[in-house]
């Protein structure tokens, strides 16, 4: 089952006189439960591609279908809603709402979707346990280490069972121990929940753990290797 279909997508910026082809004709498919790393030097189009996948940006041409739905056909408010239900995000930093506890942060999407209290609590507990932070449920982000914050972010991203999770350099700010812990957890969840994880990363540790590695250069796919 194809979760994501990218069909000949281009993203061209022409704000200055120079035309910047951030994404220059990419066609890719992603399936369920994939664990993918997208690599490439700065300026290769990684972040842009991720933004397009997440519906945060619109392709200049081409289509992006998620579960068969063309993102460009959605209206702005529908897009936001779609994102909320179907896509999970883990950013490099600033993932969490500073005034909420870990538990509240994880619950946030669920309460926006109006889940019942019982369902929310159950799922939250489940997720926090899965990332090993059930003991820190009532702490605010400021009281947690970088690694712990990122783990909560993962739990939050998975809360409403999205179709896939986009992670933009999630380990960039972490020390090796935290980074490893985080990746192990993400792999475990990928295995258990069967949710697709797509990383944009420089981090070799991430690349090492990925099942599929896509290399970009100048907005084009250069290599697409499936390991294992």
């Amino acid at each position, binding site marked *: 089952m194809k979760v994501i279909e990218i069909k000949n997508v281009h993203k061209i910026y022409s704000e200055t006189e120079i035309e910047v082809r951030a994404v220059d004709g990419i066609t890719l498919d992603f399936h369920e439960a994939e664990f993918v790393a997208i690599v490439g030097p700065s300026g290769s189009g990684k972040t842009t591609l991720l933004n397009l996948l997440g519906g945060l940006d619109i392709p200049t041409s081409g289509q992006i279908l998620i579960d068969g739905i063309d993102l460009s056909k959605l209206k702005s408010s529908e897009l936001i809603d779609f994102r909320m239900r179907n896509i999970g995000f883990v950013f490099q930093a600033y993932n969490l709402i500073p*005034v909420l506890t870990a538990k509240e942060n994880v619950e946030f999407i669920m309460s926006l979707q109006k889940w019942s209290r019982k369902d929310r609590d159950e799922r939250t507990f489940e997720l926090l346990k899965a990332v090993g932070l059930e003991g820190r449920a009532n702490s605010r982000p400021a009281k947690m280490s970088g690694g712990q914050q990122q783990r909560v972010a993962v739990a939050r991203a998975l809360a409403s069972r999205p179709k896939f999770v986009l992670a933009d350099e999630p380990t960039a700010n972490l020390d090796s121990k935290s980074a490893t812990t985080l990746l192990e957890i993400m792999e475990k969840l990928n295995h258990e929940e069967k949710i697709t994880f797509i990383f944009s990363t420089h981090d070799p540790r991430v690349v090492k753990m990925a099942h599929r590695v896509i290399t970009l250069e100048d907005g084009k796919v250069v290599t697409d290797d499936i390991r294992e």
Partner: protein
Amino acid sequence: MIIEIAWKNVWRNKTRSLVVITAMAIGVFAGVFTMAAINSSVVQRIDSAVNEELSHIQVNNKDFRSSSDIQNIISDPSSVFSVCEKTSGVVATTGRIIVRGIASTSAKSTGVEINGIDVEKEKKIFKLSDKLIQGTGSYFGSDTKFNTVFIGEKLAKELNIIRYILTPEAISKIEAEGVPSAVITNLEPLSGQRFISDKKFSKAFENLLTKADRQKYSMIIKEAAWSYRPGSKIILSFLDIDSNQTGAAFRVCGIFRTNNDMFEGMSVFVPVNELRTLTGMGENRFHRIIAKIEDNDLTDKITSEIRTALPGLEVLSWKEIQPDLAMMADMMQQIYAIFMVIILAALAFGIVNTMLMAVLERTRELGMLAAIGMNRKKIFSMIMFESIFLSIVGGIAGMAVAEAVIAVTAKNGINLMKYSEGMEAFGYSAHLYPTIEPQFFITTTILIVITGIISSIYPARKALKLNPVEAIRTE
């Protein structure tokens, strides 16, 4: 959920929020308290007017007010009385004879309005008997074979009936009020001297005291030296029913003091029978019938009821007799609203600034929220609620403090002695007992919430304009 987050966001930067909240509290407090002070002035004036001067409803002969001719009487008083008494809401009625005349002593004379009243009935309607100055006699108390009259302090002063003497008792009164003995010694040369007017007395001690002492103590000194020999006589002259000049000597049975100089100077009260005899008006003849009602709010309704029942006569409520009074009450609401709006506008600016900073320092966070699925409406509401919370917390604090201060000052009042002359000339007391209707608080709260909402518009728009892509871009 959004509301919870908004509330918590307010407290992220405690210092900043507290500055805005304190400003709001101060502004609201000042606005509410000032209005309470001014409002009390008006409330007191209306209260005096109704309870001392006019009562609620007056019934006159149609031509009486335009031409105070003694002939313009109410032709059938008993039917008027029965109509009034039958009307629900009316608790007391009385009738008066009113003639214009001149009050004089050997020294001075001045025009007055002589009211012939039913002494007992009037007590149920007017509180004038309570305004008697202690020591000047009584409200028609003593039995005497003389004609008696009850006059106001202003009139008594004008007719030079009031003297100022620094008797030993006066001096001990001054001491008791805490005036320093040095000042009292300076006043020595005046002791025992009798001054027939306020001005002459003031002039006399003007040279004996420093300006500062005068400002502080002149009121106390005058109060203490105030002297009146009970039983002074004045002459009232007026026209009788046949338009002949007539009059008689009247013994002043008591002097009243209200806050209204005009009323004190113009109105004198005599028992109606004395006036009947002198004017030759028959029994059961009145110029005016007065009705007091239980609930002031029903004034208009009851007045028109009575008016319909008495088509040949002029029926007026106090609001119609002194429209500027009624208007004052309305004006108060408007002035308050304007003053509060100005203060809130000034505060709004501070709130906009604060919210703007709060939004701009959270660009990444807001971008993230937009990315994970918080739609525009929710982001806007979040900002709006933050703004409202800032306003409300300060507003409630301000109102609470205002209420507390009002409660405290309402007991002892604020005495603006310095301005009493000017204010009492218009009928306003210079001793304020701040009071405010609960409605003011409701109006204020609504205004505060509106301020919060309006202040949030610009910052919220800025928040919405953020592009999540740029907002979360890592550097």
